[in-house]
C-alpha cells in the first residue's frame, strides 16, 4: 500500500500543478499510514528526477525512453502501465492537466479501473479514502470512493492542494526504462504553436469586468463594455462568449485562456464553471452579478448582486458615474 504521484514536466519546466499533486500525495500517504513516491516521464530528465529526490518521498522515478520525448497517449500509457506493475502503488495521483485528461482514462481502462478525475478534496474515514468532486459545472459536490482493488487512480483539480505544503527530505532516485516499440505509438504529435500574438494582456490589468453566457446576445455586449469603460477596467469574457465569436479569444479568462489576478474582477452573467474559476480565483476582490443565487461564482465572490444583469448593469454604470 503506497501512493504514487505522477508529475508533469515539459522538458524545460514543471507544470505548476505538479507540486500541488506532490503535496497531496504526501498528505494522503500520511493519513493512510503509508509512503509516497513520485514519478516523472521525461526523456533524459535526470535533473528533474534529482529535484524530486530532495523531497520527502520513498522513491523518485525517472521514466526515461527515447519514444517518450514527445507526449503521446499510447507512449505514456505503455510506460506508466509498466511502472505501475513494478511499483505496485495502491493509489496513483495526477494533476488534472490537459495532458493527463488525454491519457489517464486510457491507462485506467487498460487496467480495468475508473479514474476519479478533477478531485477537489479528500478525507479518510475508517481507513477508507473518500474523494470529493464537482458535478453540474460546480453546482453540486459529490463524495465518491473506489470499489476496486489497487491500483486506483485520481486526478486533482488546479488549486485544490497547496504547492507550498510540499515537504522536503530525501529519496533515492531510480531510472525506469520501459519497453516500447515505435509501432505501438499510433498518433504522431506535430508542432506546438500559439495563434496570433496576444494584443491584450489581461494579466497586467488592475480592474477587469468579465462577461459570460448571461448576456444572451452579441448585441448586448456593449452594455458590459460601457460598464468596463466607466470603471476604467479591461473587458474580458468566459469561454462561451469567445466560442460564439462575440469577443475575440484573446479576451478569454480561464484554463484555456488567460490567468488573471487583478485588484478587482467583476463577473457579469458568469456562472463560474471550474474552467473559468481557475483563471481568476487569484483576484484580490471578486464581484459577481448573477440571477442565480446558487451559481458557483458566488462561492468565490467577496461581493455580489443577485439580480437580472440587464437591470443591474445600467444602475452600476449610473452609480459609477455619480461617484466620480
Amino acid at each position: 500500500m503506497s501512493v504514487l504521484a505522477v508529475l508533469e514536466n515539459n522538458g524545460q519546466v514543471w507544470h505548476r500543478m505538479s507540486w500541488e499533486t506532490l503535496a497531496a500525495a504526501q498528505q494522503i500517504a500520511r493519513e493512510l499510514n503509508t509512503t509516497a513516491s513520485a514519478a516523472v516521464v521525461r526523456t533524459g530528465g535526470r535533473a528533474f528526477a534529482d529535484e524530486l529526490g530532495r523531497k520527502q518521498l520513498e522513491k523518485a522515478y525517472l521514466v526515461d525512453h527515447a519514444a517518450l520525448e514527445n507526449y503521446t497517449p499510447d507512449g505514456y500509457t505503455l510506460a506508466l502501465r509498466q511502472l505501475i506493475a513494478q511499483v505496485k502503488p495502491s493509489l496513483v495521483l495526477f494533476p488534472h492537466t490537459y495532458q493527463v485528461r488525454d491519457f489517464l482514462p486510457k491507462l485506467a481502462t487498460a487496467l480495468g479501473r475508473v479514474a476519479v478525475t478533477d478531485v477537489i478534496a479528500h478525507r479518510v474515514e475508517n481507513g477508507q479514502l473518500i474523494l470529493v468532486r464537482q458535478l453540474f459545472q460546480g453546482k453540486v459536490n459529490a463524495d465518491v470512493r473506489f470499489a476496486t482493488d489497487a491500483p486506483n487512480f485520481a486526478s486533482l483539480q488546479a488549486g485544490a492542494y497547496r504547492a507550498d505544503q510540499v515537504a522536503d527530505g530525501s529519496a533515492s532516485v531510480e531510472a525506469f526504462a520501459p519497453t516500447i516499440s515505435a509501432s505501438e505509438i499510433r498518433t504522431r504529435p506535430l508542432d506546438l504553436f500559439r495563434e496570433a500574438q496576444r494584443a491584450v494582456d489581461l494579466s497586467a490589468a488592475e480592474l477587469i469586468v468579465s462577461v459570460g453566457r448571461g448576456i444572451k446576445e452579441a448585441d448586448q455586449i456593449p452594455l458590459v463594455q460601457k460598464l468596463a469603460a466607466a470603471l476604467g477596467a479591461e473587458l474580458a469574457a468566459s469561454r462561451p462568449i469567445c466560442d460564439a465569436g462575440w469577443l475575440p479569444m484573446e479576451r478569454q479568462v480561464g484554463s484555456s485562456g488567460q490567468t488573471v489576478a487583478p485588484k478587482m474582477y467583476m463577473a457579469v452573467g458568469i456562472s463560474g464553471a471550474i474552467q473559468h474559476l481557475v483563471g481568476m480565483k487569484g483576484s484580490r476582490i471578486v464581484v459577481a452579478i448573477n440571477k442565480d443565487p446558487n451559481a458557483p461564482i458566488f462561492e468565490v465572490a467577496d461581493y455580489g448582486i443577485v439580480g437580472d444583469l440587464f437591470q443591474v448593469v445600467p444602475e452600476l454604470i449610473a452609480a459609477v458615474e455619480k461617484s466620480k
Partner: protein
Amino acid sequence: MKIVVAIKQVPARDSQLRIAPAGKWIEEADLTHEINEPDAYALEEGLQLKEKHGGEVVVLCAGPAAAAQTIREALAKGADRAIHIETAEAADFDPLATARLLAAGLKTEAPDLILTGLQSDDLGYGQTGVILAELLALPHATIIMQVEKQDGLIRVKRELEDGWFQHVEMPLPALLTIQSGINKLRYATLMGIKKAKTKEVKRLTPVELGVAGGTAAVVLQRVYAPERTKRTQLFEGNPKEAAAQLIEKLKFEARVL
C-alpha cells in the same frame, strides 16, 4: 466516411438543481433536458465532415427513454440515423460502464471516425470518449479544435493550456473528443424536423447487448450543495440601491475603485 457521434442528454444549463431526499442524486423529475453542449459541437463537426467528404453520420446515445427527444433533435439537424441504448436510470455514474454500453452498441458498425464532446455538463468526468477509444482499440486525441481529413489519416488541432495548440496526425479509424467552439452550431430546419420523423432509430437494451448488471468501479456515496468558502456580501432587491451599495463598498471598504 462513416462517422459516429456519441451524444448525451443532460439537464438544461440554467436548471435550478435540488438534491433528492436520499442525498444520492438530484431531483430529475422536474428538470428539462438538452443535448450536452460539447456533444452538440461534435455533432456539428460530424455533419460538416460528411458534407465535405460524403458518407453518413450515425448518432449514438446511451440514456433513458426520454433521451429520444435529444436524439430526434440530432436527426433533425441532419444525422442520418441513430442508435439508442435505452437504460433504466437517467444517470450512470461510471464512465467505464457508459463506454461499455457505447462500445457494445457499435459492434456491427465499424465507423471510420467516432466523435464525442470532451466532457459532460452533468458528471464532468471527461473520460467517456477516451475510454471508448481504449475499449475499441482505436487511437484518439482529446480537446480538438479542428479536424482535417487527408489520405487515410486525419490531422487535428488539439487545444493545450494557456493558449497553446498542437497538431496531431493519426490513422483512421480513430476517436476524437471535441471542444466547444470548434464550429458554429446550426439550427434544425423545418424540413429537417419533418425528415427526422422518418429516420431510423435502432433501440437496444443493455440486456440485449450483453453488458447489463456490471458492478460500478466507483461509488457515488452522497451529493450535496457545495459549502461556501468565502463570506459573500450580497446585495439583493432594488437594482438601483444594490448597485449604489456595491459601488460604495468597492470604493470605501475594498478600496479597489
